[in-house]
């Protein structure tokens, strides 16, 4: 009996009891599926963060105050000092505020307003304009009530997909019980795929700010020229971590504080996101590992039952000339077919799951060769580990006793 015949026989045997085969595989579907899902999502997420931050530029950093007390806010003098540092390429303040608008159906939608310098919008955020213009130095000088909105706002709030039509129109944003009116001067492209379900687009409205000049926001929020948020970039030839900590020390000293500022570089963000992701991956993998272990024990259990049920058949096969080796191989192959198929289906289910979940969060799930190797490898290992004992039990059955077995 050659290997091909053993494999054919294994398939026949498993197909002859489809319900049991399926239930036996279930534990492995879940285990492998969960691991592949989190890995595929994680790979997609890493790609996403990398792309996201490379848009901003790797030298970029963000300064924020640890609490909202006014004396912590960055003053124009702070900006001058930091800008004068030779390692600093740019440094601008920003004011971020959330508010609500009514869409055309009269429903309330949450939005955010982001006021900064003209250079921020064009160089740091690198907005892609679909129509109109960005706010300028002149808008900043006169604190013009103008905003650049995203295509999502144009579509979902203004009800326009022809973005030229919203230019010159006004939008009313309610901020802290006060209604502010802005003229729309431009529409920028959000990175939301157009096939995203409507509900997700609605929920994401607040994540894409309406951009305006910092002076405009200064008046609206009565900040008095001081800000609690700033963005900058460090020249690439300098050590990001070192310069960012210099900025932090400088700000603390200037405000007579010990540790009241967060200075985060893009590298910090990426590190943080990756650490987080690795922890989640580890946790889910541990849970999935337990599921695989339980699944494996289930497979062993079923294989032992199968050996018991087929005792007589094993006796007949032995009487007809099947050696112990052939019997051992037969049952091992059955266990392997079971686990490898289960692992492959689990992998596909996990990948489908990751694509569905990733789609909700705008993340492109990725299935790598490594993940495929992991699925096949784990399944094979489980098949061998939990299949060898039942197969050994079958192989060492005494032919005389097995032939008597009812």
């Amino acid at each position, binding site marked *: *009996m050659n290997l091909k015949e053993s494999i054919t026989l294994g398939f*026949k045997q498993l197909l002859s009891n489809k319900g049991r085969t399926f239930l036996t595989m279930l534990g492995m579907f879940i285990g492998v599926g969960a691991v592949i899902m989190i890995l595929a999502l994680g790979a997609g997420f890493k790609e996403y963060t990398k792309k996201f931050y490379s848009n901003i530029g790797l030298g970029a950093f963000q300064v924020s105050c640890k609490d909202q007390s006014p004396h912590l806010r960055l003053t124009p003098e702070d900006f001058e000092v930091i800008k004068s540092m030779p390692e600093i390429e740019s440094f601008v303040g920003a004011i971020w505020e959330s508010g609500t608008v009514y869409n055309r159906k009269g429903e309330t939608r949450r939005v955010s307003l982001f006021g900064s310098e003209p250079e921020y919008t064009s160089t740091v955020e690198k907005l892609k304009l679909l129509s109109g213009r960005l706010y300028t130095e002149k808008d900043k000088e006169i604190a013009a009530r103008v905003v650049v909105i995203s295509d999502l706002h144009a579509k979902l709030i203004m009800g326009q997909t022809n973005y030229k039509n919203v230019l010159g129109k006004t939008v009313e944003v309610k901020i802290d019980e006060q209604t502010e009116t802005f003229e729309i001067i431009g529409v920028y492209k959000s990175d939301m795929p157009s096939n995203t379900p409507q509900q997700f687009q609605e929920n994401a409205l607040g994540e894409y700010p309406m951009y305006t000049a910092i002076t405009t926001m200064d008046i609206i929020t009565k900040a008095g020229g001081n800000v609690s948020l700033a963005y900058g970039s460090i020249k690439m030839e300098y050590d990001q971590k070192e310069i960012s900590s210099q900025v932090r020390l400088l700000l603390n000293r200037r405000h007579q504080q010990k540790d009241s500022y967060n200075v985060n570089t893009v590298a910090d963000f990426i590190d943080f996101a990756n650490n987080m992701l690795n922890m989640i991956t580890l946790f889910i993998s541990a849970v999935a590992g337990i599921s695989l272990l339980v699944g494996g024990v289930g497979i062993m259990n079923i294989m032992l039952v199968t050996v018991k049920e087929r005792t007589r058949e094993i*006796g007949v096969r032995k*009487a*007809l*000339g*099947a*050696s112990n080796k*052939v019997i051992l191989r037969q049952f091992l192959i059955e266990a392997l077919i079971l686990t490898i198929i289960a692992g492959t289906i689990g992998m596909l289910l996990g990948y489908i799951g990751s694509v569905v979940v990733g789609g909700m969060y705008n993340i492109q799930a990725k299935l790598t060769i490594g993940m495929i190797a992991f699925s096949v490898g784990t399944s094979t290992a489980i098949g061998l580990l939990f299949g060898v004992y039942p197969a050994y039990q079958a192989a060492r059955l005494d032919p*005389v006793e097995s032939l008597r077995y009812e």
Partner: protein
Amino acid sequence: MIDVQKVNKIYRNGKLELQALFDIDFRVEKEEFVSIMGASGSGKTTFLHILGCLDHATSGTYILDGVNVSEIKDTEYAKIRNQKIGFVFQAFNLLPKLTIVENVELPMMYAGIKPKERRERALDALIKVGLGNRIKHTPNEISGGQKQRVAIARALVNTPSIILADEPTGNLDSKSSVEIMNIFQGLNNEGVTIVMVTHEPDIAQYTKRKVVFRDGIIIEDALIANRRGV
């Protein structure tokens, strides 16, 4: 063909010892047709298992077809069973999920014979036992007599040195029993050596020689007078 000398079989179960066979000497020549008789517990089935290389004797020598199989290890027994012995059982022992022709092909599968030749030889063997037309059925779809014919075809198909039958008519009605015995006689006439265990005296009458076991020893070994079926 078969030369057994001073074979003993002792079963040990903890401290209990049970001797099933005592110093058995037994020879079978080519083209013989021997029936082994005896009450249950007389040792006849144990002896058949030893002849069939399903079990080892505790002591003594067993030479089958010129090979001293009592010196062969358990792991090599499978090959001897496959090449030199054809079994026919009381309970037929066909595999229910396989078709009739697949059942007959089984011993050749373990012998490593190619699928095409396997099928041809299986069909030849089935024709020989008069079952050339029901090959795609499963064992559950045919009668007991037909099942035993399939089992005989399976036993023949690797052209073994000897066919060992353990109560082959035990589960059959008298008409089917006669049919099976006629097939055995036909095969024997063609030169097939057969050893058959039975407890039915009239079935033993179809064979050429009768050996009777009692309490682990052979008490009678004689040629059959007034053979039936010839």
